């Protein structure tokens, strides 16, 4: 086991597992941001494992996850918009989750880019990083939009809808 695989396992245990725990328990307002954070961390784990196994082709899994992870989150936001509008997530939690993913992406990608060196592989890594950051940003924005839409509609309308 080399250092990259050890780092991947550490991120899996200390980053992915707690985030997945948050996404699996509690109210919907906590689950949706936690699900996005889980997919971001897992994508970074895949990149570390690809470097650890010395297989650059393994980064394809991270690329696919960086596209599908935020897509899954947007899906949840779209289909659970009513629940998110009823009980919107706290802005502080949302900000913390987004900041965590913004910090984790360069913390993992910079050493990987350094060890890869300039070339096509590094371009791929940078694309994955950009996708992850854009995904976190758009997911946070979608959750905020769903929550504020609930505020403008107001409680009585929601009440008649449920009846």
């Amino acid at each position, binding site marked *: *086991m080399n250092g990259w*695989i050890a780092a*991947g*396992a550490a991120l*899996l*245990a200390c980053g*992915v*597992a707690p985030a*997945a725990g948050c*996404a*699996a328990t509690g109210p*919907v307002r906590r*689950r949706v941001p936690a*699900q996005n954070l*889980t*997919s971001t961390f*897992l994508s970074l*784990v*895949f990149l570390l*494992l690809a470097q650890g*196994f010395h*297989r650059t*082709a*393994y980064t*394809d*899994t991270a690329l*696919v*996850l960086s596209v*599908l*992870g935020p*897509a*899954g989150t947007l*899906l*949840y936001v779209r*289909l*659970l918009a009513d629940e998110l509008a009823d009980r919107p997530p706290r802005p502080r939690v949302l900000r913390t989750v987004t900041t965590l993913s913004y910090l984790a992406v360069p913390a993992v990608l910079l050493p990987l880019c350094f060890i890869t060196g300039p070339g096509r592989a590094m371009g791929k890594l940078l694309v994955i990083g950009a996708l992850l950051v854009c995904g976190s940003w758009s997911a946070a924005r979608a959750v905020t939009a769903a929550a504020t839409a609930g505020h403008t509609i107001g409680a009585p309308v929601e009440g008649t809808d449920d009846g």
Partner: protein
Amino acid sequence: MADDLPLLLGLLLVAAAGTGTVLVRDPVRQSFVMSLFGLALATLFLLLQAPDVALSQLAVGSALTPLMVLLSVRKVRRRARGERREERE
């Protein structure tokens, strides 16, 4: 032993997510745990150095299955609501 640590971690995640999926009763909350189960399985496949299987598992597990579950729940709830309204009228 140290070499198998990531694999053990992946197996543990799959076991925990699988058990969680079975234990959760509400379909909406179950779809969250099920997507996490899909992600855990993809991690395990990558740790076993099978990236092609991991890719297909990611595509199916992280977006497609939750979409189908949530769409079905939405449709069933709408139909139940419509029937209730008809009964009242």
